[in-house]
C-alpha cells in the first residue's frame, strides 16, 4: 500500500512538473513573452525594461528555475488589470465556481441516474433508444448554445429568470442547467452500462430466484452497487466542471474562474490566463491522485496489480 501510494505520488509530481514545463515553454516557443507581459501599447523602452525586470534576458533554464521557485511560494504573478496577485483573484472567484459546479452536478445526477436506470431496465426498447438519443444530444450541443437558447426562452420570451449576473438562487438555475446538461449525458451512459453489468451478476440472480419483486431487486440490490462508478466519475467531473465552465460563465456573466479566464483573455492579462490554466491542471492532477488512492484502499486487486 505504501509503495502504491509512493509510485502514484511520484507520477502525480511528474505530471505537475511536465505541466509547468509545457506551459512555460509554450509561452516562450511561440513568441516573445515580453509582448504578453507588457500592457498593450507599450513602447520599445518599456519592453526592454520589462524584459530585464522579469529576467527574460537570462538563459531559459534560469528563467524556468525562477518560475518554479515563485510557483513554490504560491506566487502566480500579478494581474495587470486588477493590480492584485493572481492567486488572490483566483481564490476570490473559486467559491462562485464551486457553487455553480455543485448545483450543476446535482442537476446532472438527477437527470442522468434515473434515465440511465430506465434505459438499463428496458434495454433495446423505447426508453433505451430515447435515452441514447438524449445522450447523443447532450454530447452534440455546445453548452453555450444551450445557455443562449435558455436565455431566449426563459428570460426574453417568458421573463421568468434573470439572464445574467449572480446573487439569488434564480440566477443559478439556467447556468447550472446549461453546464449540467452535457454531464447528464455522460452520467446516464455510465449508469446504464454499470447497471447492466450489475444486473447480470450472480447475486442479482439470487435475489430474483428467492422471489423478490423486480422493483426491489433494482432499487435495493442492483442500484446501490451500480452507483459506485457513477459517483466516482461525478467526483472527477465536479473538478472538471469548475474548469470547463468558461463559456457558460461568459454567457451568463457568472463571476467564477471561467469568467476570470475570459477577462484575462480580453484584457490581454497574461498572468491571469497562465495562473488559471496552471491551477486547473494542478487541481485535476490532484483529484486523479486521490481517486487512484481511494480505489486502492477500497479494492485490493488494484494495489496488488502494480
Amino acid at each position, binding site marked *: 500500500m505504501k509503495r502504491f501510494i509512493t509510485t502514484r505520488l511520484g507520477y502525480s509530481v511528474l505530471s505537475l512538473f511536465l*505541466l509547468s514545463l509545457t506551459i512555460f515553454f509554450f509561452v516562450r516557443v511561440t513568441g516573445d513573452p515580453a509582448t504578453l507581459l507588457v500592457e498593450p501599447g507599450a513602447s520599445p523602452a518599456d519592453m526592454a525594461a520589462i524584459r530585464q525586470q522579469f529576467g527574460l534576458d537570462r538563459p531559459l533554464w534560469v528563467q524556468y528555475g525562477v518560475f518554479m521557485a515563485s510557483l513554490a511560494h504560491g506566487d502566480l504573478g500579478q494581474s495587470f488589470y486588477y493590480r492584485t496577485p493572481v492567486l488572490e483573484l483566483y481564490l476570490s472567484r473559486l467559491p462562485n465556481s464551486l457553487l455553480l459546479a455543485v448545483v450543476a452536478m446535482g442537476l446532472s445526477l438527477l437527470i442522468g441516474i434515473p434515465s440511465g436506470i430506465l434505459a438499463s431496465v428496458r434495454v433495446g426498447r423505447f426508453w433505451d433508444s430515447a435515452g441514447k438519443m438524449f445522450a*447523443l*444530444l447532450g454530447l452534440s450541443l455546445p453548452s453555450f*448554445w444551450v445557455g443562449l437558447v435558455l436565455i431566449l426562452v426563459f428570460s*426574453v420570451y417568458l421573463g421568468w429568470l434573470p439572464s445574467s449576473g449572480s446573487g439569488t438562487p434564480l440566477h443559478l438555475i439556467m447556468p447550472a442547467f446549461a453546464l449540467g446538461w452535457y454531464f447528464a449525458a455522460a452520467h446516464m451512459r455510465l449508469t446504464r452500462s454499470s447497471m447492466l453489468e450489475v444486473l447480470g451478476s450472480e447475486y442479482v440472480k439470487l435475489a430474483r430466484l428467492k422471489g423478490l419483486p423486480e422493483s426491489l431487486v433494482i432499487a435495493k440490490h442492483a442500484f446501490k452497487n451500480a452507483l459506485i462508478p457513477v459517483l466516482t466519475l461525478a467526483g472527477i467531473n465536479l473538478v472538471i466542471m469548475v474548469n*470547463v465552465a468558461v*463559456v457558460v460563465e461568459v454567457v451568463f456573466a457568472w463571476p467564477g474562474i471561467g469568467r476570470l479566464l475570459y477577462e484575462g*483573455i480580453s484584457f490581454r492579462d497574461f498572468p491571469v490566463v497562465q495562473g488559471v*490554466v496552471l491551477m486547473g491542471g494542478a487541481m485535476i492532477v490532484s483529484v486523479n491522485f486521490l481517486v487512484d488512492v481511494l480505489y486502492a484502499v477500497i479494492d485490493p486487486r488494484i494495489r496488488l496489480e502494480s
Partner: protein
Amino acid sequence: MTITTQVETIGLEPRAASRLAGIRSGDFPVIPALILLGIAFVAIFANLLAPHNPEIGSLTARFRPPFWQTGGSTKYLLGTDQLGRDVLSRLIFGARVSMVVGFTAVIFAGVIGTALGILSGYLGGWVDQVIMRVTDTWLALPALTFAIFLAAIVGPSMWNIVIILGVTYWTRYARVIRGEVLSLKEREFVRLAIVAGCSKWTIMRRHILPNIINSAIVLGTLMLGVVIITEATLSFLGVGVPPPEPAWGVMLSDGKQGLMVGRWWLTIFPGCCIMLMVLSANLLGDWLRVKLDPQLRQL
C-alpha cells in the same frame, strides 16, 4: 422468431425512422450520412449557392428577420445581422470553415496521435515512458482550457486553430492506439515478420499500421464532433476564427447582443447548424465503431 418479426412490423413507423437515423446500433445511419454529405456539398459550392456576399452587408438592411416574419423579405431568407449581412450566406460559408477546420484538425491530431501511439506501443521502454507521461499530463489538462491558453498565446487565425486543436486532441488517439499495438505486437504475424528479418520501421509501417487504421478512423469520426464544438467555442470566446470570417461560432458571438431584444434568428440558426453537423458525425461514428471495431464498443 416469427413472434419478434411480427412485433417489429407492428411498430414499423417509429422503427423505420430510428433505423434511418441510425439510433439503433447496427443500422446504417442514412439520414446523418446524408446531412454530412449535404453540408460538405454546401461547403464546396458555397460560392455558387450563397445568394449574397457573406462578409459585406448593407447597413440599410440591418437586423431583418427571416422572410416569414413581418419586416422580413425573400431577398434575405433567414434575415440579416448587425452589419446587414445575409445570415443564410454566412451559414453557407460557415459550413466551409467548420468542414475545413474540423477535418484538417482531426487528421492532424490523428496523424500525431497514431504515430506516437505506434512508436510508444511497439518500441516500449523509455520511448513508451516518455510519450505516455506526456500523454497523461496533457489528458489531465481540461482540453478546452488548454486550447484557450494556446489560442491566447498564438493569436487568432483559422490555421492556428487547426494546429491548436491538433496539439490538444492527439492524446486521445495515442492512448487507444498504444493499447491496440501492445496486443498486436504479441501476435504471430508480427513475430514471423521479426523472424523474417523485417526492420522495426517496416513492421510498424507494413504490419502494425494497417491493423490499427480502422480504430484511428473510428476515433477520428467521433473526434470530429468534439473538434467542431471546440472550434465554435473558441470562436465564440473571440480566440478562434477571427471575426470577419463567417464561422458559426463567430456568428453566435455576434448574435449574443441581439438576444435580449429578441433577435432569435442570429442565435438559433448557427446553433442548429452546429448541432446537425455534430449529431450526424456522432451517429456515423457510433455506427462505424460497431461496424469496424468490436473492441471499441465499450469506449
